């Protein structure tokens, strides 16, 4: 059982991590780097007009911060590669632990079920928290980090439990408890700032949020399918 769990999770996590890296570099990284141009003050925008801060650009200190050396970029890209693998092997482990629990209740998880688990994972880990805490482009001020992390973790756990109750609950009572868990974090509300102080243009932030959700959904669908596939393939170990 231990071998089955870990092998399935590691293979699924590696495949999802690979997709994640590809999507991060093709769709996200350029927006992150552009957001940082506004975060560091190298660029600013007023009334739809782009202003490039030449004084900052000219000074050596800012230049090293904003315009990265090729070896820095290489380091940055390799780290992203590594971290994506860690994250999705991590989520893969949690997902196959869920498969094993479903198995113990006599609900066998097929490859297609794996896809549904993936979509559910996306909903719990990305969609639900995004209602209160939208994905942040660098240069977007937000409320205190620990409070946001606490709300994020609570929302992810509550939404995951709600979805599990909807999928596997055996009576209306389970569905009722699920609904309460689904809605409660949003009634409590995510920690927010009183005003808006984002440095990057709203268009850039909007594009960023949409892409972040789309990319996450694609990765989670792959993670669920792959986890379902390896879980069934490794059924005898």
């Amino acid at each position: 059982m231990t071998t089955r769990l870990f092998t399935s999770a590691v293979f699924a996590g590696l495949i999802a991590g690979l997709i994640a890296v590809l999507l991060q570099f093709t769709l996200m990284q350029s927006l992150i780097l552009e957001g940082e141009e506004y975060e560091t003050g190298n660029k600013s925008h007023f009334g739809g007009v782009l202003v490039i801060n030449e004084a900052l650009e000219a000074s050596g200190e800012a230049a090293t911060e904003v315009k990265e050396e090729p070896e820095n970029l290489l380091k940055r890209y390799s780290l992203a590669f590594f971290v994506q693998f860690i994250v999705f092997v991590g989520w893969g482990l949690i997902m196959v632990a869920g498969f094993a629990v479903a198995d113990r209740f006599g609900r066998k998880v097929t490859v297609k079920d794996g896809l549904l688990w993936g979509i559910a994972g996306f909903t719990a880990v990305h969609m639900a928290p995004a209602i209160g805490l939208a994905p942040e482009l660098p240069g977007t001020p937000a409320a205190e980090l620990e409070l946001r992390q606490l709300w994020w973790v609570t929302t992810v756990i509550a939404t995951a439990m709600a979805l599990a109750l909807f999928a596997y609950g055996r009576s209306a009572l389970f569905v009722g408890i699920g609904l309460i868990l689904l809605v409660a974090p949003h009634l409590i509300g995510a920690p927010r700032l009183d005003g808006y102080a984002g440095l990057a243009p709203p268009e850039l932030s909007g594009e960023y949020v949409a892409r972040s959700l789309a990319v996450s959904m694609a990765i989670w669908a792959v993670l669920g399918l792959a986890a379902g596939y390896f879980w069934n393939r490794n059924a005898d170990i």
Partner: protein
Amino acid sequence: MTVLTRTQTSTETDTGLMPIVGAFAAGVFLIFFAGFAQATVFHDSAHDTRHTLAFPCH
């Protein structure tokens, strides 16, 4: 007899809850370091990925 008992015990352990709890805990551990740990080394290494995946970050 002794051998038989041991085999039985190891089978019981392997189909028990421990492997499931272990996999879950290992997953949480990885997510914590990649997504949440605030030590500078973790934050800087994971910065772009945290933003991409919308973990609450700095």
